[in-house]
């Protein structure tokens, strides 16, 4: 049986576990700084096993030794941005958390593919890469999958079609700088641009950009976790089942699309070795310009990171 570990048993982590459990593809270990909470959630899942026909085991603990031998590790640990907390405070807090997590992964699960979920995503993926010392293809960030599923749903809702029939890809950094690709979006194989006018498409794109914020506005005291959990689970599934799935994800670039030494959302082939290939597709001038802006935003985040962080340090 394959094995997946999820670090951080909050809403996103637990929901990813739930989606994975439903797929019955791997034993699952949940690790949280609050080990009792992780253990309890795992027990709650296992109590549902008879009803949901789970054939996998789900355990929870505070002890990283339990992740030994994992094929994939999902990192959701970190804090959300709280009122009054600026971007730098958030970055410092989550970098400290993820550094510790990364060192445990390197020690106990040296062969795992690591899927980063914690925000700010592209910067956090950089920290994981540096702290684990893993090969670059072994570290990948979850961004495009979430932005794409939101984009697909908004298209489906607007056109009144089944969400499963909409295919779309969203590149770039996770957030305002995302780059949805109109020309590669289709509904049952029909290009989106034939199904909807430019204005309507722009509206869908705008809603996708602010999709995370829209949920926060409704929930007031929390942020989205169903769609993020489903997106992370999808990526894990691609790794565990060696699907060679073509999916938008944050990958370390070494010249692809003209960028070097940064994590950025691009189309990748995801399989058991992680990012098995970065797929180059033709972009319009407008899309390339938007991707440039996205890359610049990631670099800005890295500059912030470097004001207080050096790999292997303990600040």
């Amino acid at each position, binding site marked *: 049986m394959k094995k997946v570990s999820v670090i951080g048993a909050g809403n996103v982590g637990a929901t990813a576990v739930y989606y994975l459990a439903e797929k019955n593809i791997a034993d699952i270990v949940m690790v949280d700084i609050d080990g009792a*909470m992780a253990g309890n*959630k795992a027990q709650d899942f296992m*109590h*549902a*096993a008879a*009803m949901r*026909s789970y054939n996998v085991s789900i355990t929870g603990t505070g002890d990283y030794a339990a992740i030994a031998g994992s094929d994939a590790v999902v990192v959701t640990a970190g804090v959300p941005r709280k009122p009054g907390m600026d971007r730098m405070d958030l970055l410092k807090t989550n970098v400290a958390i993820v550094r510790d997590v990364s060192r445990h992964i390197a020690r106990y699960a040296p062969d795992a593919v690591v899927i980063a979920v914690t925000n700010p995503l592209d910067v956090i993926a950089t920290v994981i890469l540096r702290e684990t010392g893993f090969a670059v293809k072994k570290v990948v960030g979850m961004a495009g999958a979430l932005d794409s599923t939101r984009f697909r749903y908004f298209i489906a809702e607007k056109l009144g079609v089944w969400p*499963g029939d909409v295919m779309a890809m969203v590149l770039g950094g996770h957030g305002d700088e995302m780059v949805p690709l109109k020309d590669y979006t289709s509904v049952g194989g029909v290009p989106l641009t034939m199904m909807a006018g430019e204005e309507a498409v722009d509206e869908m794109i705008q809603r996708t950009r602010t999709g995370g914020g829209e949920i926060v506005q409704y*929930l007031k005291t929390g942020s989205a976790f169903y769609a993020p959990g489903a997106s992370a689970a999808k990526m894990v599934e691609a790794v565990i089942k060696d699907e060679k799935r073509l999916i938008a994800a944050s990958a370390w670039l070494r010249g692809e699309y003209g960028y070097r030494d940064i994590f950025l959302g691009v189309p990748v082939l995801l399989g058991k070795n992680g990012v098995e290939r970065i797929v180059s597709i033709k972009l319009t001038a407008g899309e390339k310009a938007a991707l440039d802006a996205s890359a610049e935003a990631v670099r800005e985040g890295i500059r912030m990171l470097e004001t207080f962080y050096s790999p292997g340090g303990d600040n």
Partner: protein
Amino acid sequence: MAKIGIIGSGNVGANTAFFVAEKGITDIYLYDMQEGLSTGKALDMMEAAPIRKYRNRITGVDDLGMMAGAEAVVIAAGAGCSAGSDPEDLMEANWPAVSGIIERIAGIVPECVIIVATEPVDPLVTMISRRFSVPRKRLLGLGGILDAARLKAAISRELSLSAENVTAMVLGRHSRDMVVPMQYARVSGIPLAMLMTEDRIRQLEREASESGSIMAALAECPGTYYTPSAAAADVIDALCMDMKRILPVSTVMAGEYGISGVALSLPCVIGGGGVERALSPELTGPQEKALKKSAKDLEQFLAGVKS
């Protein structure tokens, strides 16, 4: 497509919607008192629809009127089971909320099946039946089905066998006083007694009765929600697909084991009409005695409740 309403969009309510969506059973309308909460959670789930290929819709509403036409309504509102909270406190906190909801939906969904997920489940089901004269068929509570799921999990773990192969039943009150007729626990039809020692069976029986409260203690505040949600989804599945599944749910007793007028869990046939039939399997002397004592205790408990 059929339609189900869920009132209360906290962990149990929202995850029930989630389980139902995963099974592709029916359209769901989620409601919560906190404005926006159900809309936000429904939207978040629908944003996963392209990945999970949901074929039904989850809609968040701030207006109970939108529940019109629902075949069943799950009551998942109220405070959760937290460490140290006793049934008296929970009843005091939740009965006003639940009775208020039933009153409000009576005119909107007069014929729907009411599924109570809120704790304490047996007292609430009894009080709903008394106050609102809801027929037995259209009212049930998630009681024994949770305890049975936990027992099955424990048996499966103990024997290292798939939980799918395990059948088990838990009756009576959804509390420490539950009745666990281990003579009906089987693995692919094989009685448990042929697979493990009497001592282990007794120990599992004890664990089962303590499990619910242990879960609440561990989780501190929010109680548990994956198992209750999975149970609610199973009941909804049986209802919407008219499956005639036998599930242990809290139902108002009508003479079974000589008990009437209070709700306890019995194995019930769940189909399109709701609780179509309640079974009363033969129990040992002590088990039947325990069941009768639970009924008496429940009456006593209810005497102290302000209706």
